[in-house]
């Protein structure tokens, strides 16, 4: 009972922490641009403001338009519930859940693309087609990276993979799993719509990917979408930290271990956010037709990671 309660708490913690990561990247970018940047409260009050605002909804919008924010939020939340955050136990972990994890995210994306087409505006369709093109390349890379890690850990449960890496010595997972790390990092950038794949701060409709799909949304729906997007970003960062820096994750519900895990977890995700922010500051956005090349790199890294382990053996 306590375990379930704590799992729920860590899930909520994830949801509440998510905007802070976005704030951190914004703050980093601001520092690089001679700006002060927003305060931490700003990101939360922005969400709150949107939740309070009225919505303007197109007359041609069907139920898909109304359902999408909820589907997106719930599916992202459900995906997050499979993830060990502070403790090694996740709320809904079971064998094979990595596949469900990938397709829960795909479900959200599917509805996002549909809803963008729903109102029949120009930019929505453009955004959907781009998002689908990119995700059709990002998804296999993500799955393969999971398979590679699962092969190493003899299980296809996220919990299992994390506990396998957490218990093993840091050196055993070097080379080939680090290839999978590269793959996952690229997928993380693509999935969270960051430079060099997408520009979250642009006002240029014609260049948008993610933003183009949600142009028609306002008020509460927009808040929900934004929040889901931030949670998704944190889910990916958590995934990276779980899989590649699992040390210190609490194995039991002992308060001391939990506290240590909390500190380490924060350090890990903020470090990863720093990496993403650093990439964002140092590069321009790729040409849209170059993005598939980047995602192909992720795919190749994932496949090398898997093949390398198959050929040379486990635990190299």
């Amino acid at each position, binding site marked *: 009972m306590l375990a379930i309660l704590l799992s729920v708490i860590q899930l909520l913690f994830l949801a509440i922490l998510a905007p802070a990561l976005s704030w951190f990247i914004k703050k980093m970018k601001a520092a690089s641009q*001679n700006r002060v940047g927003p305060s931490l409260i700003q990101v939360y009050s922005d969400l709150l403001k949107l939740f309070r605002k009225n919505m303007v909804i197109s007359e041609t919008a069907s139920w898909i338009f109304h359902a999408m924010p909820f589907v997106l939020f719930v599916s992202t939340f459900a995906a997050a519930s499979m993830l060990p955050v502070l403790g090694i136990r996740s709320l809904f972990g079971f064998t094979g859940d990595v596949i469900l994890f990938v397709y829960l995210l795909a479900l959200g994306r599917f509805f996002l693309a549909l809803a963008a087409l729903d109102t029949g505006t120009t930019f929505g369709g*453009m955004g959907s087609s781009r998002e689908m093109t990119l995700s059709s390349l990002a998804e296999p890379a993500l799955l393969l990276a999971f398979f590679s890690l699962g092969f190493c850990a003899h299980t296809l449960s996220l919990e299992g993979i994390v506990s396998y890496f957490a218990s093993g010595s840091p050196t055993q997972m070097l080379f080939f799993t680090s290839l999978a790390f590269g793959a996952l990092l690229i997928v993380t950038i693509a999935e969270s719509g960051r430079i*060099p794949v997408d520009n979250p701060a642009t006002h*240029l409709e014609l260049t948008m990917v993610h933003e183009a799909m949600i142009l028609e949304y306002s008020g509460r729906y927009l808040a929900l979408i934004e929040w889901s997007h931030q949670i998704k970003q944190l889910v990916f960062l958590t995934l990276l930290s779980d899989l590649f820096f699992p040390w210190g994750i609490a194995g039991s519900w002992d308060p001391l271990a939990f506290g240590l895990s909390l500190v380490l977890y924060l350090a890990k995700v903020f470090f990863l956010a720093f990496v993403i922010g650093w990439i964002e*500051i140092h590069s*321009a*956005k*790729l*040409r*849209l037709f170059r993005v598939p090349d980047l995602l192909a790199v992720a795919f190749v890294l994932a496949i090398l990671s898997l093949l390398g382990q198959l050929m040379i053996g486990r635990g190299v």
Partner: protein
Amino acid sequence: MKPVFQKLKEKLGSAILEVSEGTAKEWRVFAAKDSILRIAECLIEVFGMRFLFLSGSDTRKENKSFTLHYVFSYVHQDQFWIVQTRVEEKDPQFPSLAPFLPQVNWHEREVQDLLGLVAVGHPDPRRLVFHEDWPQGFFPLRKDFGPHQKIPRTAALYAFERVEGEGIFEIPVGPVHAGIIEPGHFRFSVAGEGILKLEIRHFYTHKGTEKSGEGKTPEHLLCLAERISGDNSLAHAVACTQALESLGQIEVPSRAQFLRVVFLEMERLHNHMSDIAGIALDVAFSFGASQLMRVKETLLSLNEELAGTRLLRSVVTLGGVRPDISEVKKEWLIQEIKKIKDDFDKTIQLLWQVDSLMDRVKTTGTIMKEVAEVLGGVGPVARASGIDRDLRRDHPYAAYKDLFFRVPVFIEGDVESRMKVKVQEVYESFKLIHDALQAMPQGSLCGAVKLLAPSQSALGYVESPRGECFHWIVTDKSGMISRWKIQSPSFSNWPLIEYAVLENIVPDFPLINKSMNLSYSGNDR
């Protein structure tokens, strides 16, 4: 120069009614409207002149007909040749030059819309300045059109050119955009992401500036000119006052000429800074963009310190300039410019090293030299496509004659070239400001203001940051302004964008657009 007009007479004989020298460098050729095409062909093909703009005016009061002025530039002799013809009110038609000279396309359509004359043989006679809600039979540039006249609105549809085929989509963008920019409509026909055709539709901000200038005092006109295009305020003002000065035969003291150069180059600097920053921002390299915007801000503060206005409004006045740069200020400005140059240097070095940025700008939005030439491209856009053309050197005004500078030309015609041209021009501007300050003689700031000569016309021109900008002013019998034609560089360059985007992809359009950085307001007037 005698040879030119003698040759012209020999070649064309009776087609030319009269040749006369107008004010200063302007030569006039009077001709019947039927021989316009022959004369234009001759001027362009035999003498290598270049068409600049077409201005139509309502002169029915004086000679019961409309007058068309075709202005050509004759670079070799630093002259302007103006072919003048009359169009009778009873037969409001004139032969279109567009099939021979594609760049007159918009010019002739503008005359059609504003003056109600018909260009016979124009391949695309659709409306340009006025949209379909403007009723038939209302022509603002005619003298009988009152400025406060109520215009009934009608309903009609504009026919866009359609591209048809399987999987071809249209993307309408604008006139309302997400960013804080001016209104303009872009219609893309795409197959997937590739652009097959772009059709632009502008003139949403047509304010009738030319019409409202009629009958104004020279000072008032100058005020209006400063507001044509916000960031090119000074360029328009200088072009306008040059025309007025030449009409009033006002002597501009040498010190004022040098000061004009200093301020014009200051304007070019802050424009180019924000253009290059805009390119960096559009490829999401915000680090570089914000560094350049910081430099721009420093420049604007310098302007404020020197002239009291950040965008250099009210700097130029009839006969000279208002603010002086004292010896102390001069030294200080030279030091400041040096600091800014170092700052700019560092940022640009950094930009060239960012591979992801260079990858975006290379080969993007290529404008072939032939296209730029045929469509009459001007300014940095033309210079990036290999056209060596700069009014400051070709038709020197202010004190540019006495200063040495290079005109950077690149041949690739892509976004990178346009960026390079602007970067090099920034360096030239630093140098020009320095040299102009050093060479500036002592003296008064402003010449004596005189009345404008009656029944005359004159041309004022400036190489603005966006390209060549012309103001053409005509006075009536009482010396009042009866026609004010503004030829802004954006009007010349907008048609080029339809070609620049071909074979590019939709998400690269904002970058291409930014690299040309054309003004909507300057275009629409």
